[in-house]
Every structure is written in C-alpha cells, then in structure tokens.
C-alpha cells in the first residue's frame, strides 16, 4: 500500500504545480495585427434569440450581424437615418401601389453568386411563407397575395406572393394591396435583404455560417459564444469596412463586458450597465458615446377595461402624465441616457421626418397641482390605485417604475395612488398583455423598425394593429393614417401623420415617458465609433490603430 500512498501524493503535487503555472500564464493578450485597416476589433454581443435568417431576426443582437453581412435595396444613413439607395438603382411608381425596382448590376454575394432580382423575390417569398415560421413575416403583409401564403388561420394556399414578379435579371415589380407612399423607405429593414441560392438549397449549412452580400463575411461562428467576421475584399459597395474584421463575443452579463473593456480585453461595449453610468465618464472620458436612438418608452393603457375607457378617462391619463417628473427621473436614474419625451415619435426622425418637439405640450410637463385637479375631474383613479405592470427580468425597469410611482404619489398626495406590479419574465409579461389581463397602465417600449413617423404611429395606435397592445381605437386616427399612406407626396404624408399624432395627444392614448439613447464605450485602440439610429454600432466605419 506504500506505493499507492506515494501515487496519491504525486497526484496532489502535480495538481498544485498545474494550478501554479496556470495562474502565472493568465493575462497574455490576444489581439494581434497592426497596420491600417487590417486590425480586428472585438465587441460585446448577446446570443441571438432566433436563427440568423433576415426575416426571422427581430432583435438588436441578431440585427448587428445582419447589418454587417447584408445590404438591401436601401440603407439608412447611420447619421441622419435617411433611407438611401444601396442596391436599388431606382424604385419607380406612379400610383404609390405598384412599384418597379431596378437593382444595380455587379453586386455579388461573398460566395461569388451574383445578386439579381430573383435573389430578392425568392428571399421575400421565403420570409412571407407561413411554413417557414419567420417572425418578421408581417413586413410583407402589404404585398398582394400575402393572405394566401400567410393566412391568419388554416394552411397556406400558395407559396409565392402574387404581388412580386421578376421581369428581368435586374428588375422586378411589387404590387401592394393598398396605397403606401413611404413603402420604398421601409426597404432598408433587414427583413428585405436578398438571399443567395445556397440559402434554399442547403439551409442547415447556411445557418451554420450565413453568407450575404455585405462588407463582412463570417469566418467562424460558434453558436452561443462568438462570431468572427472578417472584411470582405470583394465587397462591391462604397461603404467598405475600414477595419480588418470584428469579433463578436457573447456576454451573459453586461457588467462583465464592461469589466473586460476596463481591463483591455475587449474593444467595444454597446450596452453600458446601468450601475456603471455614474462612473463611465471618469472611466472612459471621450470614449463614451451617448446618442439618441429610435426608441421611445411609454405607458400604455388597457382600453379593453371599461374603467380606463369611459368619458373623462383621458383627463385621468393626462393627469397621471403631468404627475410624472420626467426630468428628475431621467437625470437621476438614467444619468441622462434618456431624454424626457415631448411627443410620441423620436428625435432621430428629425423635424423633416415628422418629429415635433413639444407636441405634447403642458400634458408632458410636471405639474402636481394641475395633475391632482385633472385626475379628480376625470373621476379619480379607477379602483383607487394605479398598478404599473412591467417585466422585472431585463433592463432597470423596477427602478424607474418605482420612481414614476413615487412621483405620482407625491403629486396626488396619496401614498397608495400608484404601485409597481412586476412580472417575472418578459415572455410572461407579453403573454399577460396578449391575453388582455392588464388592469392598469403597463410598460411599453417601442424600437423603430425603420426611421419613419409611420412606424411610430400605425403599429401602435391603429385599430387592431400588431403592437396596439392596449386595443386603443379611434376612427379619426385611422382615417388620417389611411390618408397619409395614400398620399404620394412625402411631406404632405408626414403632415397627415402629424395630425394623426395630434389625435393621440388629445386622447392621451399612451403617456410618453422618455426617448432612449444608445450608449457605448470603447478602448483607445478605436476611433470613429458611432451608433446608428437603431443603437447598433456602425462597425464598418470603425478604425483600429
């Protein structure tokens, strides 16, 4: 048995030795390279929720990749948010309902295949078809034949949209079911990206390593951990990548990503944790950016509940809005990463695009006395207490909901006027909203799909629209939106949308809270870092030294 004992000691010694050497071998740096435009940067990432198909990606993390790997007919200018022609040579229409698209020739996918009209039509048909479970399918809902390939119930009776026709190698036509003047401007959304034929012929392989026509190609993808993207030298567009590539690393906790940035282990973090907002300026100085994004946070109301939908209710809602001290909350809780809202759209649209600073007027200004008066005039708070429902699993929703409630309680002089009502998970929160179980106001965040005023109004307030969670319905509003969509002149259309927004204001359909900014921090290796209006870093313009 003596031998065995010795062996045991040997094993222990080996383990200790192993541990000791490994301890010493830690902090070696990984990122190599040096010269201009060839260095690779590393950036924080989150695991995309859905498979990485263009028409199936509806959140920012997957969107980051699509933005690097794909280019569509249009692209939103990273600075102004304006839709500009990318692959589209021209999109012609005479009646705002029938469009003829001509694409620029010479574009290629990174596997060498040419981008043709068919690449678009096939991709859109795939996205619209019910059997493919694409979560952005409703984007194709305006195209003729959508009700056949994607019926609300039952099985589909067609596989292709009748409204799409390939008329030449580089041309195709789109026929919509209704007039929609700003339709071409929606085509910058990732769901409208073209797809190569390999997407259809070998879908599983494509998903493992997506192939697109953008400035980057994916060199390796370990699902759930990291993705390495490298500059594609054969890229045809003018917005070539100004760095050698981007390595996206998945972080479960944005605090760890921030720590990694501090330690020089990561170059770019595009989600500064709320707990670090106080230190971020002293930590990063000018390497911290905080710019407006197309996100607005509101409190929506359950109009299916009679208590919130009777005459006088709008006074209660306006009163509640005036009881919220937006300035104080955005300054203290969000450290100015959010701006008090004064309308129902977003400053990224620009005044030209329909943003109206101060449209909400006094109704969005803190005024406790007026608030108390209005709530009383409107018949008091239904049930005597406002319960603000929110999901407690992500974001710092608890903090601001509690702050909003405090503000309301103070204004109304009643400690029990408002309480937060947390729901454990986002899925359950959405579920309860979907089943119309809300008894009071609930958190509603809206991130735009494309920078158009239409996107901030129609999906949220049009009767039975996809995100009209509170089931608000107003004939005047619907009529104005219909008119605006039919208007061929863009500036006139925007005017009509603004009138429709006025209807939202007069009824206080939802209480606007604040516009959300995108925030990011980066290492001193990087320069020319910016966030686009979707709060996604403009990776291709980043320079690495």
């Amino acid at each position: 048995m003596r031998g065995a004992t010795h062996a045991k000691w040997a094993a222990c010694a080996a383990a200790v030795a192993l541990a000791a050497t490994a301890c010493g071998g830690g902090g070696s740096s990984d990122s190599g390279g040096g010269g201009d435009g060839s260095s690779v940067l590393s950036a924080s990432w989150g695991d995309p929720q859905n498979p990485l198909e263009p028409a199936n990606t509806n959140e920012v993390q997957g969107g980051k990749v699509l933005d690097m790997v794909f280019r569509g007919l249009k692209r939103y200018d990273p600075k102004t948010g304006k839709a500009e022609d990318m692959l589209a040579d021209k999109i012609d229409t005479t009646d705002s309902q029938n469009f003829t698209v001509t694409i620029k020739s010479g574009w290629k996918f990174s596997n060498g295949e040419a981008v043709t009209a068919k690449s678009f039509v096939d991709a859109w048909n795939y996205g619209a078809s019910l059997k493919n479970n694409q979560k952005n399918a409703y984007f194709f809902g305006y195209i003729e034949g959508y009700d056949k390939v994607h019926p609300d119930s039952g099985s589909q009776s067609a596989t292709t949209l009748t409204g799409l026709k390939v008329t030449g190698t580089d041309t195709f036509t789109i026929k919509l079911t209704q007039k929609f003047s700003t339709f071409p401007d929606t085509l910058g959304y990732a769901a409208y990206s073209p797809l190569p034929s390999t997407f259809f012929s070998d879908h599983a392989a494509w998903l493992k390593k997506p192939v697109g026509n953008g400035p980057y190609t994916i060199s390796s993808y370990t699902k759930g951990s990291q993705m390495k993207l490298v500059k594609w030298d054969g890229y045809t567009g003018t917005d070539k990548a100004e760095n050698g590539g981007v390595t996206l690393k998945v972080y479960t906790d944005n605090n760890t990503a921030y720590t990694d940035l501090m330690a020089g282990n990561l170059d770019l973090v595009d989600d500064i944790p709320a707990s670090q907002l106080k230190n971020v300026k002293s930590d990063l100085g000018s390497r911290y950016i905080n710019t407006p994004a197309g996100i607005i946070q509101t409190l929506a109301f359950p109009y299916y509940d009679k208590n919130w939908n009777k005459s006088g209710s709008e006074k209660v809602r306006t009163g509640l809005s005036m009881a919220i001290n937006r300035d104080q909350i955005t300054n203290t809780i969000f450290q100015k990463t959010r701006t008090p809202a004064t309308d129902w759209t977003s400053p990224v649209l620009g005044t030209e695009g329909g943003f109206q600073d101060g449209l909400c007027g006094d109704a969005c200004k803190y005024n406790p006395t007026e608030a108390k008066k209005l709530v009383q005039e409107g018949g008091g708070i239904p049930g005597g207490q406002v319960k603000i429902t929110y999901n407690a699993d992500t974001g710092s929703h608890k903090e601001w909901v509690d702050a909003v409630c405090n503000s309301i309680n103070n204004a109304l002089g009643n400690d029990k006027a408002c309480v937060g009502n947390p729901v454990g998970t986002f899925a359950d929160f959405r579920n309860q909203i979907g089943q119309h179980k809300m008894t009071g106001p609930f958190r509603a965040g809206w991130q735009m799909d494309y920078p158009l005023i239409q996107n901030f109004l129609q999906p949220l307030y049009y009767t039975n629209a996809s995100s009209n969670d509170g089931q608000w319905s107003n004939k005047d509003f619907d009529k104005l939106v219909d008119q605006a969509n039919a208007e061929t002149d863009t500036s006139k259309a925007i005017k009509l949308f603004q009138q429709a927004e006025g209807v939202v204001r007069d009824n206080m359909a939802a209480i606007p809270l604040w516009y959300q900014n995108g925030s990011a921090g980066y290492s001193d290796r990087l320069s020319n870092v910016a966030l686009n209006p979707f709060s996604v870093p403009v990776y291709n313009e980043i320079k690495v030294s």
Partner: protein
Amino acid sequence: MGRYVIRRLLQMIPVFIGATLLIFLMVNVMGDPIAGLCGERQCDPATAAQLKREFGLDKPVWQQYLTYMGNVFTGDFGTAFTGQKVTELMSTAFPVTIRLTVVAIVFEVVIGITLGVLTGLKRGRPIDTTVLLLTLVVISVPTFVTGLLLQLLLGVEWGWIKPSVSPEATFSELIVPGLVLASVSLAYVTRLTRTSIAENRRSDYVRTAVAKGLPRHRVIIRHLLRNSLIPVVTFIGTDIGALMGGAIVTERIFNIHGVGYQLYQGIVRQNTQTVVGFVTVLVLVFLIANLLVDLLYAVLDPRIRYA
C-alpha cells in the same frame, strides 16, 4: 454488493421521474414562451400557432411530458428556440462546466483536506485559530462578492488574469473562477476534516498504530485520515452536483458559457426544452455521485457492508 447497486439504481427511477416532472410543470406554469419571441409586439397568430404546434405546446401538459420523456429515452432532448438541438447545447456546455467543477473539486480536496489535517492535528494552536477565522470569513461572504472582487483585483487592477473566460475555457483560465466556486465548500471541507481528525486522534486504533511504532505520516494518512474522510467524502460527493448546477453566479461573473449560462438563458427565454434537458442531466449527475459516495464508504472503511 451487486444487489445493493441494482437496488440503488432501481430507486433512481422514481426520483428521476419525479424530479423531471416537477421541473416540467414549473417551467410550464411560467406561461406561454412563444409570446416572448416577437419582441414588444404580438406574434402574428398564424406563426404563433405554427410554432406552438412544432414545439408541441398546443397539447395538454401531461401529453407534452409523456412525449418529451419518450424522446429523451431515444436521446432526443428537443430543440431550443434558436434552432439548436439541446443535445448540441449540452455538448458545448457540459465539458466547460465539468472542467470548472474539476478545478473546484481539486481545490476542495487539496487545500481543504490539507488545511483540515493541519488544523486537526494542531488543535488550539495559532494556526488552527487563524484558519478557523479565515474559513468563517469565506463562508460568510457571498460568492458573487468574492467573484467580483477577485475579478476586479486580479483582472483589472493587477492584470494577472483576463476578467472573462474565452469560449474555449481552458483549465488555466478556469483557475480563478474555480477557486471562487470552490471557496465556500472549501471552507466546509476544512472544518469537517478538522473536526473528524481531532475526534479520531484520540481513538484506540490510532493509539495502537502509534504504539506499534509506525512512522508518523503513515499513522496519519493510512489510519487517521482514512477513517476521518467519511463525512468529507459525503460532502464532496453531493457537492459535485451542487457545483455543476449552482455555478450560475460564477459563470455569469466570469462569462463562462457552461451549464449555468444555458440554464439562465433557458429560464429567461422560458425554453422548456433547454431547462428540462439540462436539469434532467443534472439530476442524473446528482444520483450517480451519491451512489458513488455510498460505494466509496466501503473502500474507506471495510467494516461497512452493503446488504
């Protein structure tokens, strides 16, 4: 012995079924997971219905459970919402967590038992008091504090290690996370060993061994330690399961993509398939570790017989 093992294996079946059923029901109670897939908007009804059909969510819970268990026995743990097979997730997550657990267990065994023996033999001396005090500190500080502190000190301030672990998660990268994960258990192991050693030191067989004139290290290792290890082995055995499933906090702090990460992701996204699949495997690990511990008793103390 053989019969004992068979009986224990048979006992595992009801435990296994009960545990998986409980988890299955708990995840189901959280509500419809599809609603969370479409962001801040209603999923269009046709796609939602089709997704429910594909994931089998349109059937009653008992039927879902039966189908699921049927599939599990053929090795099919289902598909996560990202379109990845749960078995694929397991094949990437478990090796990482196993490495982390191995590091943690090595720390527990090497440092914990060594310190335990040392303090047990020198009871009442300054070294004993110092180690006891230290273990008390370690036990009372929560893991996430130790983790974040070490991460900040070693990773950012001194730059000895990288604050986060790369996707490869090699052994050398897992040293610090492993130490953090092991810290609390390590303190317990020290205390358990110390008490056990101190108690057995006065027993007859130790006196006999000393009287026989055996060398000191042989008395300590062969006679004293071997008999004193029984409670420690029990503790470490159950700890294997706890470390594997309970690494959520540590894995989050150091961004390790192991079992804890997948479980967290699965719970947040209400992904029944992922959560139940991983928990099922963890339950199995627990059961097997416990069985092994029970069998180890006989190796340590031949007086123990299995019937």
